């Protein structure tokens, strides 16, 4: 089994707010991230797939296909967007780094042709990142 990782970057804005909480609770739990006008990050996405090396091509995955899927499903949708307002997954879910990693996994998992998705890692900043392995 060989693991292959491809990186990409996207920039987006978001804010954290749960309508089920009072304004005070939202401020206490989410702090600065609760500003309704939003704020932004340069996200780094790392997608790791796993598979056997194809004896004919020497590839675990067709990198071009992986790149195209990442672009179509994630970057074209999320880059330079306000995640709360423009991404359907975040209409009723807070776009925390945890939920962004899960949403990206769900967008990619069924679209890969040969390799199997192993891990989605999303860096919100160089000092904060989330890994999602598809675990329930």
């Amino acid at each position, binding site marked *: 089994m060989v693991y292959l990782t491809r990186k990409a970057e996207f920039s987006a804005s978001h804010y954290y707010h749960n309508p*089920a909480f009072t304004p005070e609770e939202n401020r206490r739990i989410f702090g600065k991230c609760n500003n309704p006008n939003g704020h932004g990050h340069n996200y780094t996405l790392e997608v790791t797939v796993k598979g056997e090396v194809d004896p004919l091509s020497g590839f675990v995955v067709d990198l071009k296909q992986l790149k195209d899927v990442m672009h179509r499903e994630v970057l074209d949708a999320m880059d330079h967007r306000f995640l709360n307002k423009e991404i359907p997954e975040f209409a009723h879910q807070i*776009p*925390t780094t*945890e939920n962004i990693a899960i949403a990206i996994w769900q967008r990619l998992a069924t679209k890969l042709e040969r390799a199997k998705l192993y891990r989605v890692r999303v860096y919100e900043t160089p*000092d*904060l990142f*989330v*890994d999602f*392995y598809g*675990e329930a």
Partner: protein
Amino acid sequence: MKAHLSRRYLFSASHRLHSEAMSEAENQSTYGKCNNPHGHGHNYIVEVTVSGPVDEQTGMVCNLTDLDGFIEREVLARYGHENLNTMKEFIKDVPTTENLCIQIYEIVQRGFHSAHLERVRLEETMMNSFEYSGKSEAPK
């Protein structure tokens, strides 16, 4: 849905690698430059990984403010700008980055209960790092 969250923190400390159980010559050959009796320092980066179900109400594995506060108080305030050799946990054990990594893991494991501790990874320099995931767990 279970996710892993990792956070990186920086602190600076000094140490000297020297074992009372070894002769001067053995210490020299084992630890080389790190055996300098005056000590030397590093900018350590500690990367803490916790895991757990993503809370449906908050979208979080745990509140970062809680994790940051705990690490600030219990790890960074403890080790930042200290000489590790003078600390009680390193009277017996040599303050290698391996042993420091284990100490930090134990501190977080004992005191932080908002999420499950998966791993502590400690970078001594850009070129070397150490990971500890507890006694019996293999790192994911």
